[in-house]
Protein backbone atom coordinates (compact mmCIF):
# COMPACT_ATOMS: atom_id res chain seq x y z
CA UNK A 1 0.00 0.00 0.00
CA UNK A 2 1.35 3.37 -0.93
CA UNK A 3 1.08 6.74 0.70
CA UNK A 4 -2.58 7.72 0.73
CA UNK A 5 -1.69 11.40 0.85
CA UNK A 6 0.26 11.51 -2.40
CA UNK A 7 -0.53 14.60 -4.47
CA UNK A 8 -2.58 13.44 -7.40
CA UNK A 9 -2.01 14.50 -11.00
CA UNK A 10 -5.26 13.32 -12.50
CA UNK A 11 -4.46 13.79 -16.18
CA UNK A 12 -1.24 11.83 -15.69
CA UNK A 13 -2.71 9.05 -13.55
CA UNK A 14 -6.02 8.43 -15.33
CA UNK A 15 -4.58 6.76 -18.45
CA UNK A 16 -2.61 4.35 -16.27
CA UNK A 17 -5.58 3.57 -14.03
CA UNK A 18 -7.76 2.96 -17.08
CA UNK A 19 -5.24 0.70 -18.76
CA UNK A 20 -5.45 -2.30 -16.48
CA UNK A 21 -7.83 -4.98 -15.25
CA UNK A 22 -11.56 -4.49 -15.92
CA UNK A 23 -11.15 -0.89 -17.06
CA UNK A 24 -8.42 -1.98 -19.48
CA UNK A 25 -10.56 -4.84 -20.75
CA UNK A 26 -13.33 -2.32 -21.49
CA UNK A 27 -10.85 -0.02 -23.21
CA UNK A 28 -11.81 3.02 -21.10
CA UNK A 29 -10.00 6.22 -22.11
CA UNK A 30 -9.44 9.46 -20.24
CA UNK A 31 -11.35 12.25 -21.94
CA UNK A 32 -11.39 15.44 -19.83
CA UNK A 33 -11.53 16.74 -16.28
CA UNK A 34 -12.11 19.82 -14.13
CA UNK A 35 -11.53 20.59 -10.46
CA UNK A 36 -14.23 18.22 -9.27
CA UNK A 37 -15.29 16.25 -12.33
CA UNK A 38 -13.89 13.70 -14.75
CA UNK A 39 -15.02 12.45 -18.12
CA UNK A 40 -14.03 9.02 -19.44
CA UNK A 41 -14.80 7.46 -22.81
CA UNK A 42 -16.05 3.94 -23.43
CA UNK A 43 -15.17 3.40 -27.09
CA UNK A 44 -17.62 1.50 -29.26
CA UNK A 45 -16.83 -2.23 -29.42
CA UNK A 46 -18.90 -4.92 -31.05
CA UNK A 47 -18.37 -7.54 -28.36
CA UNK A 48 -20.03 -5.36 -25.71
CA UNK A 49 -23.52 -5.43 -27.17
CA UNK A 50 -26.55 -5.66 -24.92
CA UNK A 51 -28.65 -7.41 -27.51
CA UNK A 52 -27.84 -9.78 -30.36
CA UNK A 53 -28.06 -8.05 -33.72
CA UNK A 54 -28.49 -4.53 -32.38
CA UNK A 55 -25.39 -2.32 -32.42
CA UNK A 56 -25.91 -0.68 -29.03
CA UNK A 57 -23.55 -0.98 -26.07
CA UNK A 58 -24.87 -3.02 -23.14
CA UNK A 59 -25.82 -1.24 -19.94
CA UNK A 60 -23.24 -3.15 -17.86
CA UNK A 61 -20.19 -1.40 -19.34
CA UNK A 62 -21.92 1.95 -18.83
CA UNK A 63 -22.13 1.19 -15.10
CA UNK A 64 -18.40 0.43 -15.11
CA UNK A 65 -17.69 3.64 -17.02
CA UNK A 66 -19.65 5.77 -14.54
CA UNK A 67 -18.13 3.98 -11.55
CA UNK A 68 -14.63 4.67 -12.86
CA UNK A 69 -15.35 8.32 -13.68
CA UNK A 70 -16.96 8.69 -10.24
CA UNK A 71 -13.90 7.36 -8.45
CA UNK A 72 -11.59 9.64 -10.42
CA UNK A 73 -13.79 12.68 -9.75
CA UNK A 74 -13.31 12.11 -6.01
CA UNK A 75 -9.54 12.18 -6.40
CA UNK A 76 -9.84 15.26 -8.59
CA UNK A 77 -11.80 17.07 -5.89
CA UNK A 78 -9.58 15.85 -3.06
CA UNK A 79 -6.44 16.61 -5.05
CA UNK A 80 -4.95 13.45 -3.67
CA UNK A 81 -5.14 9.74 -3.98
CA UNK A 82 -6.99 7.74 -1.33
CA UNK A 83 -8.23 4.19 -1.48
CA UNK A 84 -11.99 4.26 -2.04
CA UNK A 85 -14.76 1.74 -2.48
CA UNK A 86 -18.20 2.08 -4.04
CA UNK A 87 -20.94 1.65 -1.44
CA UNK A 88 -24.05 2.40 -3.47
CA UNK A 89 -24.52 3.22 -7.14
CA UNK A 90 -27.67 4.02 -9.08
CA UNK A 91 -28.00 4.43 -12.84
CA UNK A 92 -31.15 5.60 -14.64
CA UNK A 93 -31.12 4.81 -18.35
CA UNK A 94 -32.95 7.72 -19.95
CA UNK A 95 -32.61 6.58 -23.57
CA UNK A 96 -30.69 4.00 -25.61
CA UNK A 97 -27.29 5.05 -26.95
CA UNK A 98 -27.08 5.53 -30.70
CA UNK A 99 -25.93 2.56 -32.75
CA UNK A 100 -22.15 2.15 -32.95
CA UNK A 101 -21.65 5.19 -30.73
CA UNK A 102 -18.97 5.54 -28.07
CA UNK A 103 -20.37 6.49 -24.67
CA UNK A 104 -18.85 9.11 -22.39
CA UNK A 105 -19.24 9.19 -18.62
CA UNK A 106 -18.99 12.58 -16.94
CA UNK A 107 -19.19 12.53 -13.16
CA UNK A 108 -18.83 15.26 -10.54
CA UNK A 109 -17.87 14.79 -6.90
CA UNK A 110 -20.06 17.35 -5.12
CA UNK A 111 -19.31 16.55 -1.50
CA UNK A 112 -16.69 14.77 0.56
CA UNK A 113 -16.65 14.08 4.28
CA UNK A 114 -14.05 12.35 6.43
CA UNK A 115 -15.12 8.94 5.22
CA UNK A 116 -17.68 9.36 2.42
CA UNK A 117 -17.72 10.93 -1.03
CA UNK A 118 -20.87 11.76 -2.98
CA UNK A 119 -20.91 11.84 -6.78
CA UNK A 120 -23.43 12.35 -9.56
CA UNK A 121 -23.11 12.39 -13.29
CA UNK A 122 -24.31 11.45 -16.71
CA UNK A 123 -23.45 9.23 -19.62
CA UNK A 124 -23.83 10.66 -23.13
CA UNK A 125 -23.04 9.64 -26.67
CA UNK A 126 -21.72 12.93 -27.99
CA UNK A 127 -23.99 15.63 -26.60
CA UNK A 128 -23.76 16.14 -22.82
CA UNK A 129 -27.09 17.99 -22.96
CA UNK A 130 -28.85 14.84 -24.16
CA UNK A 131 -27.69 12.11 -21.72
CA UNK A 132 -28.27 8.41 -22.21
CA UNK A 133 -28.05 7.84 -18.45
CA UNK A 134 -27.89 9.62 -15.11
CA UNK A 135 -26.01 8.26 -12.13
CA UNK A 136 -25.65 8.90 -8.44
CA UNK A 137 -23.27 7.07 -6.12
CA UNK A 138 -21.66 7.08 -2.70
CA UNK A 139 -18.10 5.95 -2.14
CA UNK A 140 -16.34 5.26 1.16
CA UNK A 141 -12.71 5.87 1.86
CA UNK A 142 -11.11 2.60 2.81
CA UNK A 143 -8.79 2.17 5.77
CA UNK A 144 -5.91 0.18 4.36
CA UNK A 145 -5.90 -2.07 7.43
CA UNK A 146 -9.51 -3.00 6.86
CA UNK A 147 -10.03 -5.82 4.44
CA UNK A 148 -13.68 -6.81 4.77
CA UNK A 149 -15.12 -3.71 3.18
CA UNK A 150 -16.54 -3.00 -0.24
CA UNK A 151 -14.05 -3.22 -3.09
CA UNK A 152 -11.85 -0.32 -4.01
CA UNK A 153 -12.36 1.15 -7.42
CA UNK A 154 -8.81 1.01 -8.46
CA UNK A 155 -5.27 0.23 -7.55
CA UNK A 156 -3.54 2.32 -4.97
CA UNK A 157 -0.14 1.49 -6.36
CA UNK A 158 -0.07 3.97 -9.21
CA UNK A 159 3.28 2.98 -10.61
CA UNK A 160 4.37 2.54 -14.18
Amino acid at each position, binding site marked *: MSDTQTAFDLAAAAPFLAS*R*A*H*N*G*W*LGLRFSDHGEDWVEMELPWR*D*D*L*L*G*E*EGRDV*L*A*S*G*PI*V*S*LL*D*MAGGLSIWARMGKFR*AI*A*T*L*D*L*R*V*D*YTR*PARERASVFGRVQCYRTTRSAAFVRGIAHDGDPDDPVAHMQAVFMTVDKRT*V*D*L*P*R*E*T*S*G*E*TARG
Partner: protein
Amino acid sequence: MADTPDIALLTPYARSLGISLDRWDGEAPVLRVDFSEAVLGRPGALHGGAISGLLETAGYGVLRAALARSGREAGFVPINITVQFMRAGNEKRSFARARIVKLGRRTANLSVEAWQDDPLKPIASAVMNVMIRDAD
Protein backbone atom coordinates in the same frame (compact mmCIF):
# COMPACT_ATOMS: atom_id res chain seq x y z
CA MET B 1 -34.77 -29.55 -15.03
CA ALA B 2 -37.80 -30.49 -17.08
CA ASP B 3 -39.02 -26.94 -16.87
CA THR B 4 -35.75 -25.41 -18.03
CA PRO B 5 -36.54 -23.17 -20.95
CA ASP B 6 -34.32 -23.34 -23.99
CA ILE B 7 -33.46 -19.65 -24.19
CA ALA B 8 -30.47 -17.44 -24.75
CA LEU B 9 -29.57 -16.09 -21.32
CA LEU B 10 -26.39 -14.27 -22.23
CA THR B 11 -25.83 -11.08 -24.17
CA PRO B 12 -22.70 -10.67 -26.30
CA TYR B 13 -21.34 -8.45 -23.50
CA ALA B 14 -22.02 -11.12 -20.85
CA ARG B 15 -20.30 -13.84 -22.88
CA SER B 16 -17.37 -11.55 -23.57
CA LEU B 17 -16.94 -10.87 -19.85
CA GLY B 18 -16.90 -14.63 -19.17
CA ILE B 19 -20.37 -15.03 -17.64
CA SER B 20 -21.97 -18.46 -18.04
CA LEU B 21 -24.90 -20.50 -16.74
CA ASP B 22 -23.91 -22.47 -13.63
CA ARG B 23 -27.21 -24.24 -12.94
CA TRP B 24 -30.93 -23.72 -12.55
CA ASP B 25 -32.28 -23.10 -9.07
CA GLY B 26 -35.99 -23.61 -9.43
CA GLU B 27 -37.12 -21.15 -12.04
CA ALA B 28 -34.06 -18.93 -11.72
CA PRO B 29 -30.78 -19.37 -13.57
CA VAL B 30 -27.70 -19.16 -11.35
CA LEU B 31 -25.05 -17.40 -13.39
CA ARG B 32 -21.36 -17.41 -12.65
CA VAL B 33 -18.21 -15.65 -13.70
CA ASP B 34 -14.78 -17.09 -13.09
CA PHE B 35 -12.02 -14.81 -11.93
CA SER B 36 -10.00 -13.24 -14.72
CA GLU B 37 -8.20 -10.01 -15.49
CA ALA B 38 -11.40 -8.84 -17.20
CA VAL B 39 -13.30 -8.67 -13.89
CA LEU B 40 -10.46 -7.38 -11.71
CA GLY B 41 -10.62 -3.96 -10.06
CA ARG B 42 -7.75 -3.05 -7.76
CA PRO B 43 -5.22 -5.84 -7.23
CA GLY B 44 -6.97 -8.60 -5.30
CA ALA B 45 -10.56 -7.41 -5.62
CA LEU B 46 -13.26 -7.65 -8.25
CA HIS B 47 -14.38 -4.49 -10.09
CA GLY B 48 -17.79 -3.19 -9.04
CA GLY B 49 -18.71 -2.62 -12.67
CA ALA B 50 -18.05 -6.27 -13.49
CA ILE B 51 -20.11 -7.38 -10.47
CA SER B 52 -22.89 -5.06 -11.65
CA GLY B 53 -22.72 -6.69 -15.08
CA LEU B 54 -23.12 -10.13 -13.49
CA LEU B 55 -26.07 -8.92 -11.36
CA GLU B 56 -27.77 -7.34 -14.35
CA THR B 57 -27.29 -10.42 -16.51
CA ALA B 58 -28.85 -12.60 -13.79
CA GLY B 59 -31.79 -10.18 -13.65
CA TYR B 60 -32.42 -10.36 -17.37
CA GLY B 61 -31.96 -14.14 -17.22
CA VAL B 62 -34.72 -14.82 -14.71
CA LEU B 63 -37.02 -12.42 -16.54
CA ARG B 64 -36.38 -14.01 -19.92
CA ALA B 65 -37.03 -17.45 -18.43
CA ALA B 66 -40.34 -16.34 -16.90
CA LEU B 67 -41.53 -14.77 -20.15
CA ALA B 68 -40.54 -17.89 -22.11
CA ARG B 69 -42.58 -20.04 -19.71
CA SER B 70 -45.65 -17.93 -20.31
CA GLY B 71 -45.07 -17.87 -24.06
CA ARG B 72 -44.37 -14.15 -24.19
CA GLU B 73 -41.88 -12.93 -26.72
CA ALA B 74 -40.49 -9.61 -25.64
CA GLY B 75 -37.53 -7.28 -25.69
CA PHE B 76 -36.11 -5.49 -22.67
CA VAL B 77 -35.21 -1.87 -22.16
CA PRO B 78 -33.40 -1.09 -18.92
CA ILE B 79 -35.03 1.61 -16.77
CA ASN B 80 -32.63 1.66 -13.86
CA ILE B 81 -30.38 -0.32 -11.57
CA THR B 82 -29.32 0.37 -7.98
CA VAL B 83 -26.37 -1.63 -6.72
CA GLN B 84 -25.20 -2.06 -3.12
CA PHE B 85 -21.69 -3.28 -2.48
CA MET B 86 -21.41 -5.17 0.81
CA ARG B 87 -18.08 -6.97 0.65
CA ALA B 88 -14.99 -7.02 -1.51
CA GLY B 89 -15.09 -9.72 -4.17
CA ASN B 90 -12.00 -11.88 -3.99
CA GLU B 91 -10.08 -13.43 -6.88
CA LYS B 92 -12.37 -16.40 -7.28
CA ARG B 93 -15.60 -17.54 -8.92
CA SER B 94 -18.70 -15.42 -8.30
CA PHE B 95 -22.37 -16.32 -8.64
CA ALA B 96 -25.58 -14.35 -9.05
CA ARG B 97 -29.27 -15.20 -8.89
CA ALA B 98 -32.28 -12.96 -9.33
CA ARG B 99 -35.86 -13.01 -8.10
CA ILE B 100 -38.82 -11.45 -9.84
CA VAL B 101 -40.49 -9.23 -7.27
CA LYS B 102 -43.16 -8.03 -9.67
CA LEU B 103 -43.87 -8.94 -13.27
CA GLY B 104 -46.34 -6.67 -14.98
CA ARG B 105 -47.43 -6.12 -18.54
CA ARG B 106 -45.03 -3.24 -19.17
CA THR B 107 -42.43 -3.43 -16.43
CA ALA B 108 -40.69 -5.88 -14.14
CA ASN B 109 -39.05 -5.30 -10.77
CA LEU B 110 -36.14 -7.60 -9.98
CA SER B 111 -34.02 -8.26 -6.92
CA VAL B 112 -30.57 -9.75 -7.46
CA GLU B 113 -27.75 -10.96 -5.24
CA ALA B 114 -24.17 -11.95 -5.99
CA TRP B 115 -21.95 -14.08 -3.75
CA GLN B 116 -18.79 -16.14 -3.80
CA ASP B 117 -18.52 -18.91 -1.16
CA ASP B 118 -21.76 -18.46 0.73
CA PRO B 119 -25.08 -17.26 -0.74
CA LEU B 120 -25.95 -15.95 2.74
CA LYS B 121 -22.98 -13.58 2.58
CA PRO B 122 -23.62 -11.59 -0.59
CA ILE B 123 -20.85 -9.40 -1.98
CA ALA B 124 -23.40 -7.18 -3.74
CA SER B 125 -27.12 -6.83 -4.41
CA ALA B 126 -29.18 -4.91 -6.93
CA VAL B 127 -32.69 -3.75 -7.60
CA MET B 128 -33.60 -3.42 -11.27
CA ASN B 129 -36.59 -2.00 -13.12
CA VAL B 130 -36.95 -3.23 -16.68
CA MET B 131 -39.34 -2.13 -19.44
CA ILE B 132 -40.87 -5.03 -21.33
CA ARG B 133 -41.67 -4.51 -24.99
CA ASP B 134 -43.83 -7.29 -26.35
CA ALA B 135 -43.05 -8.36 -29.90
CA ASP B 136 -45.88 -7.49 -32.30
